[in-house]
């Protein structure tokens, strides 16, 4: 095959074409493609890392809420629970204090009432006792006076009887013995016996004349005038002292 200038022209043009169109751009386009791929890879990696990052951050906040935060939360909840319980206790204590105060007031009032009642009761019982003893005293005094009056009557009767009899000394001895005044009365009895002995001797030798009464009065002057009256007075005084 004959090859002329046309072939050289074509080959030259093709070579120039490849130089201009292909070689000039091949490297830069290849490089650009590599960069493009790298950029896309990095973009994707970046995106995935961002996602992972977000997920980690989310799970972190989640775990800080659910983990560390959970602990805090649990603590807070426990403390809140405690506070609630304490508040309830406080309220119940307040209520109980109020109840107790009311109870105290009621009991105080009751105490006051009882004190009043007690005071009233004391006053009543004392006066009752007083009245009782006063009554008893009065009755005793009455009985004593009655007995005294009887004694007095009896003594008067004895006296009269004694005056009628001839032996007054025996009468006195009898009377005194019966009455029995203790040592003092013993002493008095001795004195009286001595006096009776002296008086007997004197009356036997006494003057005749006057009435019977006069005769007794004459024969034992101090006996008749002093003895009955003084004794009677003394008894009544002693009764009065006792009663007071």
């Amino acid at each position, binding site marked *: 095959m004959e090859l002329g200038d046309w072939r050289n022209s074509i080959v030259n043009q093709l070579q120039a074409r490849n130089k201009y169109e*292909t070689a000039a751009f091949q490297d830069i386009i290849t490089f650009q493609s590599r960069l493009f791929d790298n950029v896309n890879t990095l973009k994707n990696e970046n995106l995935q890392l961002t996602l992972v990052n977000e997920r980690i951050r989310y799970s972190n906040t989640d775990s800080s809420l659910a983990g560390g935060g959970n602990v805090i939360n649990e603590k807070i909840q426990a403390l809140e629970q405690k506070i609630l319980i304490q508040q309830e206790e406080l309220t119940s204590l307040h209520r109980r204090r109020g109840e107790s105060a009311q109870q105290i007031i009621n009991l105080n009032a009751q105490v006051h009432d009882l004190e009043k009642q007690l005071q009233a009761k004391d006053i009543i019982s004392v006066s009752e006792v007083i009245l009782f003893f006063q009554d008893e005293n009065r009755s005793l005094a009455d009985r004593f006076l009655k007995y005294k009056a009887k004694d007095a009557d009896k003594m008067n009767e004895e006296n009269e009887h004694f005056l009628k009899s001839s032996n007054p000394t025996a009468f006195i001895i009898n009377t005194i013995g019966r009455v029995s005044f203790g040592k003092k009365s013993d002493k008095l009895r001795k004195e009286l016996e001595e006096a009776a002995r002296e008086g007997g001797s004197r009356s036997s030798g006494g003057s005749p004349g006057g009435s019977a009464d006069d005769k007794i009065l004459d024969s034992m002057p101090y006996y008749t005038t002093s003895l009955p009256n003084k004794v009677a007075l003394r008894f009544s005084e002693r009764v009065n002292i006792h009663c007071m």
Partner: protein
Amino acid sequence: MANDREVLREIWDGKLPICFQLAQEEIMEIQQPDPFYVMVPRLSYFPLVTDKMKRHFLRYISQENSDSEMWLDYNGQPLKWHYPIGFLYDLFCGNDPQLPWTLTVHFTKFPEDVLLHCPNKDIVEAHYMSTVKEADVLKHRGQVMSTMQKKDHNQLWLGLQNDKFDQFWAVNRRLMESHSDNEGFKHIPIRIYSDDGICNQRLVSPKNVDGSRKNLHQMISELYPDKSDVKLRTHGVTLPLDTPLQWLSEHMSYPDNFLHLCLC
């Protein structure tokens, strides 16, 4: 015979830097998507090289459009995916090279009246194979393709798809052989496009009536008798008019075995 390996290799190695940008009205994200730069083989097809780009831009469009068919435009002109990328560049930017070639990516408003649908790469393969067969019919009455095994067809396709020069040419060379005694194809598979993209496909013989090798100039005279000063461009090359058609077809056909020439 396509035995000028240097030319074949130079053609094969041609790659274009392309800048894909998502159509502004389809961006649903606040952040503007970065443009997607890539070197693409001139001989390949857009559906074979845009998977990664598509994934990149899908993140920025409305979810309801994510299953829509993607399509491309240059300066408002939809790009036909069934044409080789290099040819599309020559067609639109042959007179005014702009590199990197900035294309706009769309997911909506598919221009039904302009573009064929391309739901997957099998469609591209089917289209490619049918074009190869058509070219073989023109060259060898379809005898080469019909005698090839399925694995040869696959190797042809996979060699192109995976940018494997040797793998591709191991099979493609058989399609470039001349069978008849008088060297040359029966007809030259050739499509000539005016700058408005309208395709003109005629039966072109590699030989003149007198049996001599037909060159470009002679062909142009036949096809465009009224036009003088016609230039034809393919693979980014303005073809010398004395280039023989047979050689041109053997060495400068696209992998679909057609010569795609742009009038300029």
